[in-house]
């Protein structure tokens, strides 16, 4: 498994633990009648589990599993786009998860910055895997 996939997958596991913890607090809070106090965690719960866990896991496995045929760039240059996707995704998840918790005018700005970072991650990830979705050729990677 490439090093960047290890980072993608371990970070996704960390977000799984974090997202499940927030979800358990919310559900237990509902059962204990303190639902409203925990309800503010919902955007972070959704963000951490949808993008931090599920999307990140899919990206990490794709970088690991997809064929490496037909990649003509050097391995270092090729890996750079995957690392860029990893960095942007995680900046995006953090900002988008924390944004709704921040008070005042900062919240929407943080969320917007997070969404833009996630869009950048999608572009970098697409740039990384596009050449690998091909039936022929053999790369040095």
């Amino acid at each position, binding site marked *: *498994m*490439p*090093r960047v996939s*290890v980072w993608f*997958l*371990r970070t996704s*596991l*960390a977000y*799984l*633990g974090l*997202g*499940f*913890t927030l*979800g*358990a*607090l*919310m*559900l*237990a809070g*509902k*059962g*204990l*009648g303190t639902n409203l106090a925990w309800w503010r965690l919902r955007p972070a719960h959704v963000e951490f*589990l949808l993008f931090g866990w*599920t999307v990140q*896991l899919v990206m990490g496995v794709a970088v690991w599993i997809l064929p490496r045929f037909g990649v003509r760039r050097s391995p270092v240059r090729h890996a750079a786009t995957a690392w860029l996707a990893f960095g942007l995704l995680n900046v995006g998840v953090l900002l988008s998860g924390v944004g709704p918790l921040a008070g005042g005018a900062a919240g929407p700005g943080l969320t917007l910055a997070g969404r833009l970072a996630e869009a950048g991650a999608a572009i970098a990830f697409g740039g990384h895997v596009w050449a690998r979705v091909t039936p022929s050729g053999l790369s040095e990677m």
Partner: protein
Amino acid sequence: MPPLSRWYVKLALLYFVAALVLGALRAAEPLVSLPPVLVAAGPAQVHLLVVGWITQMIFGVAYWMFPRYAPDAPRGNDAVATATFLLLNVGLLLRLVAEPLYALHPSVKLGGVLVVSAGSQWLAGIGFVLNTWPRVKGR
């Protein structure tokens, strides 16, 4: 495919069908009168899909396909993996039953079931993380 992964994947498929059938039933609500318990099942339906289907499918395939932990324990600690499977499904089923009922008739007993469900699913998540983490490794 190991037996535990087969259980994960087959249950995931059942939850997938159940979630979409429940979604279709709930979508009919403006046209026909539904039992209140179905109308109150929105959060349960979402979690049937994202925990029962998506997360469970990932858990099952990861348990099967991720790199081996060690020659004598290729899939990590089997007891933890089995407990993870049981806790996830017990927690999810308890939520599925208790959450809509609690929304209609809040009570200490149903609230307690939700707390047990929360703890059960949380333990499953932590169990999966602990058992899978050492299997995520480089060449």
